[in-house]
């Protein structure tokens, strides 16, 4: 067996021991994984972000505007000095502010407007037949929105509508759960495939 496969197999089994309970074997694997993955992220960000997107454009191509993100990035280190540590809030404010600016139209469009217009369907089909689905969708949408109505106690008509909304929510949760189970199983099957085929050679 290849040494790599042997190591991968042992580490795989070490992680599975966690299902029994937390134990030193799992802990060794976990600590090793944390260390490796932080190191991996460092290398990838160094290469693809700092070298490719900052140092090369700035120092080789002379793209002077890149001085700005360099300064913003360096300001993060002000956290280590007591007096000017507030300056690290500038890059954070930039990230949060720009993120908020992007989020407003993007969220309103994709999460709100798009969903609103997708819910509108004629109640009567072309052939004059009543469209039951359209009614279900609009009732589901409005009652669930009533559930998310916060500035009034859920009593009376509002309470009943909101309660209907919780039923629709439960249908949604049940459905998503049911549909997601399959793909969750396949990740484990992938590991079993590795263990039985490559590691133990029980399957050819």
């Amino acid at each position, binding site marked *: 067996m290849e040494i790599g496969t042997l190591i991968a197999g042992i580490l795989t089994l070490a992680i599975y021991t966690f299902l029994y309970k937390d134990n030193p074997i799992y802990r060794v694997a*976990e600590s090793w994984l944390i*260390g490796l993955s932080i190191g991996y992220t460092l290398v990838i960000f160094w290469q693809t*972000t700092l070298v490719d997107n900052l140092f090369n454009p700035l120092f080789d191509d002379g793209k002077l505007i890149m001085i700005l993100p360099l300064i*913003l990035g360096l300001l993060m280190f002000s956290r280590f000095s007591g007096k000017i540590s507030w300056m690290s809030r500038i*890059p954070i404010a930039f990230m949060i502010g720009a993120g908020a600016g992007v989020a*407003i139209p993007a969220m309103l469009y994709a999460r709100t407007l798009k969903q609103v217009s997708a819910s509108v369907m004629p109640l009567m089909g072309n052939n004059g037949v009543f469209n039951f689905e359209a009614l279900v969708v609009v009732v589901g949408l409005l009652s669930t929105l009533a559930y998310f109505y916060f500035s009034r106690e859920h009593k009376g008509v509002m309470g009943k509508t909101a309660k209907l909304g919780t039923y629709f929510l439960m249908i949604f949760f049940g459905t998503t759960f049911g549909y997601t189970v399959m793909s969750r199983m396949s990740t484990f099957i992938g590991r079993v495939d590795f263990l039985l085929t490559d590691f133990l050679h029980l399957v050819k």
Partner: protein
Amino acid sequence: MQTRIPLLVCLISGLIMFAQYFSSHPVAKSIYENVLEWWQIIFAFTLLVGVAAFIKTNLKSISQKKDAPYRTISLLGLVLMPILALIGGTKIDTPFLWVFENMQAPMQATVFSLLAFFVASASYRGFRARSIPASILLVTALIVLIGRVPIAEFISDSIPKVGFWIQNYPSMSARRAILIGIGLGSMTTALRVILGIERTYLRGN
């Protein structure tokens, strides 16, 4: 000044990014792409801050003999990857990639696969028909689950169809309402951030 400058930066960058969304002008497009790049760059620098803190805490634990062996293993892994990358690069057939493929990736995939077990234990515990909502949750989950198994068609043709119908109409309508709510909540939060009303992130309210 300590709050005013960050608030001003927040306001300006927020307004610019809001405005660029509505334009297809090349300038707007390039502003957007640049900001995406800058985010990454600031993130990369902050990553160094985070890693420095990680190393500091671990060294402190080691010197206090608290979990020293495990902390040492983490630190070894952390320095190993950059060293391997420096020596041999990161492409195919390098030690760096070997460690990634034979150690890191299999462990990550295994942690991911724990989900299969947790889905099982959660299903056993979490779907009891305690109340009307819980029963609705149970019944829809069962219909969809059974509808997804290839044999369902042999039992009854209608199970997968019912599952499909539930997904496309009642379930979809609730999902839309959740998304609309999230859209509105995100919008007001973002607006408060830009206007400087929301400033928890700048130390307190």
